[in-house]
């Protein structure tokens, strides 16, 4: 492959580096040492085993959601409602954990299935609102996000309140059998990694090799032509949303069953929105998605230590990721910028 090809391949790294540079300048302006901050961040992410495992544990639900979004983005859908789908998955898994009693493996299977069903249902609602009610998925998704969050707060402060009285922060911890088996007292569950690998492989195969993937691609690029070629737009839109919602729901289950041990107020922690950024940053390059999601996880987990070590607020991690997305949107498309001169433009 020639140089130009390599540059094109590595292009997604450019906005990341630019964002790092921008953050460095910010740090210097606030009188902090960039080297020290970077070191603190890296130590925060990989300083010891439990920290590294935290990074992975955070990465798993993030990548599950991003993987689902790959499907909806391919179909040209803006599934902003993914946040609500994660929350509904978490609620469904919590319901099983709080109300059923069974051997651990059955309980866990039930929790995952319930979470996928709830996430899928929530996404399906957005899809039907779109195809039947002509409500754009962005607006439907935002509305359902709010409803899901309000529903969580209601459950925590009402029916699922711990017996000793509501704290507004979460339910009581689930029974031990309901939790995902975790590695070395960390928040990381190997089982969730297995589920993630299966889901990601399924999506790669679906998008690259199946009729369904091709139909979604056609719909995403030109709905009208795809319809005239014989693709049923309504069916595929609903299926894509259901698929994404199910993966997001699974992500929600992983959040309550291994990151936490109970249903909490902000159970998603913004993972859905973060996943949107990950997929946008990758701009259809499937194999970049796990790497970018991992990078986000490192930055966000590392900035917690950053705050302890330096006096900088941990929102620096948020600034870094936000700036990165901004840069991607600004100059993410090498072709549009005519970086390679005029030869590349295909109009």
């Amino acid at each position, binding site marked *: 492959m020639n140089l130009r090809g390599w540059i094109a391949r590595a292009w997604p790294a450019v906005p990341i580096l630019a964002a790092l540079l921008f953050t460095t300048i910010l740090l210097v302006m606030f009188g902090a040492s960039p080297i020290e901050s970077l070191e603190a961040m890296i130590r925060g992410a990989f300083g010891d085993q439990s920290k590294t495992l935290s990074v992975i544990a955070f990465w798993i639900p993030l990548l599950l959601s991003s993987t689902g979004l790959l499907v909806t983005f391919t179909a040209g859908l803006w599934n902003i409602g993914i946040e609500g789908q994660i929350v509904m998955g978490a609620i469904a898994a919590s319901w099983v954990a709080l109300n059923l009693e069974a051997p651990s493996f059955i309980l866990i299977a039930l929790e995952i299935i319930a979470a996928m069903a709830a996430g899928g249902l929530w996404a399906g609602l957005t899809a039907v609102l779109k195809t039947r009610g002509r409500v754009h998925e962005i607006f439907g998704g935002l509305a359902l996000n709010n409803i899901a969050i309000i529903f969580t707060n209601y459950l925590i402060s009402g029916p699922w309140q711990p017996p000793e009285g509501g704290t507004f922060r979460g339910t009581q911890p689930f029974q031990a059998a309901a939790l995902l088996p975790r590695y070395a007292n960390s928040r990381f569950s190997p089982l969730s990694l297995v589920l993630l690998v299966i889901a990601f492989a399924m999506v790669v*195969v679906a998008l690259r090799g199946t009729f369904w993937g091709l139909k979604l691609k056609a719909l995403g690029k030109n709905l009208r032509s795809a319809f005239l*070629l014989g693709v049923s737009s309504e069916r595929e839109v609903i299926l894509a949303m259901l698929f994404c919602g199910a993966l997001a729901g699974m992500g929600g289950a992983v959040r309550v069953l291994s990151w936490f041990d109970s249903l909490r107020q902000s159970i998603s922690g913004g993972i859905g929105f973060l996943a949107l950024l990950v997929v946008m940053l990758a701009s259809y390059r499937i194999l970049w998605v796990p790497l970018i999601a991992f990078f986000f996880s490192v930055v966000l987990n590392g900035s917690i230590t950053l705050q302890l070590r330096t006096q900088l607020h941990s929102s620096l991690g948020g600034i870094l990721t936000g700036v990165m997305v901004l840069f991607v949107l600004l100059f993410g498309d090498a072709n549009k910028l005519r970086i390679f001169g005029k030869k590349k433009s295909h*109009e």
Partner: protein
Amino acid sequence: MHIELREIRKHFGSVKANDGISFTLEEGRIYGLLGENGAGKSTLMKILSGYQPPDSGEILINGKPKQFASPAEALNNGVGMLYQDPLDFPPFRIVENYLLGKDGRAWLDYRAAEAELQGLAARYGFDIDLHAYVDSLSLGERQQLELIRLLAGGAQLLILDEPTTGISAEQQEKLFQSIHQLASEEGKTVVLVSHKLHEVQQLCAHAFVLRRGKLVGEADVPCSNEKLVELMFEQVPVRSVRPESQLGEPLVEIRDLTISTYRLALKNINLTLRRGEIFGLAGLQGSGQELLMQAVAGLVKPESGVITLKGRNVTGRSYHQMQAAGVGYVAAGRLEEGLVAGLTLTEHVVLAQPQYGFLVDWDRAKEETDARIRRYQIIGTPQTRAAELSGGNQQRLLFGLLKEPLELLLLEHPTRGLDLRSTDYIWELLYRRREAGTAILFMSADLDEIIERSDRIAVFSGGLMSRVVEAGKTSVEELGHLIGGQA
């Protein structure tokens, strides 16, 4: 203004759309740019008008080299292009559309803009209601509007890309008059991109001929048609002869069909199509032909009436149900309604074929695509994206994607924008379809085409369908009267 093109080159993938083209345009002359589909005419003119940059080569205006990053920049330098599809904003009013083209102002001065528009319209004899919405205009009126916008923007060189496709004869006459006026009285330079020889002969003083990306000749016109045809095609193509064929049993019956949209109402349409019949629909754009076809295709729900196919009532069935019943539909907008610009030929073939399982067999799909590329003589590879094909090849691909066999084929402007050879080829394909018993219902803006290719013809005028006439017993004059609404 004096314009010189030097060694313009542009390639898309392995296709050399422009392969070192040089020529000079003098002030106040009308030039014709001829060539068959895919010869590189549109590419060259898009380069000249700033729509896309060349790979190499120079544009000199009054001796100075210029590079245009956008059509707006080209217009600032006096180069304006009228595209085949007008670049206007349908949901806007005309004044707004006009103001949109003039940026750099914080406040919109409606009054000044209206006065300016009125003045220009009066000067060139265009009659436009400034408060109308753009989407209520016909294609011809939108062209006039776009032309005025270019002139107001200071265009000294006007490029007209196939301006007569889809407009009425009357509008064409008016357009040609104003072009003449612009060149002779105001010293504007005009380039008419066309593959219609008689237009070039009628309007232009000089013609350049492109073939496969190269300038292969030029001539002062008028000259003999044979000379231009030979330059365009190397040899004079043989025209296909319309084979006579026997009509079969009735296939499609349309009874008292009524369709209403917010724009137009079709009332009590009655029509019978027989197997192997080619039925032509004439009329100005938006007179109801499209609506009838879309209703038969299942894209528009009729208000009342009955459509039967092979004796079965299929009224109100969905588009996909009609597709399954053997109805094919090819819309006019190739990349808007039919092909997906960003998908490859192979991906199109896979989508159009019946699904055979869960995973796509890409090797098998590529073979099938190769076979269709050969059968339909498409210039491209299985990996080529639809957007990279020329207009004629896009049309061939659309026909290559249709199911085999079909009961009924509905076609909107099947040969719009295609050159002689491609047009003939498309009709050969259609004749083969009718031999196999397919009924063909098509609409066209070209009355000669309708008379030459159809068995029977109906004319639409303001939502009303005329009596059905036999193609062999009618004339352009008679159809013209019917289009005007005179029975």
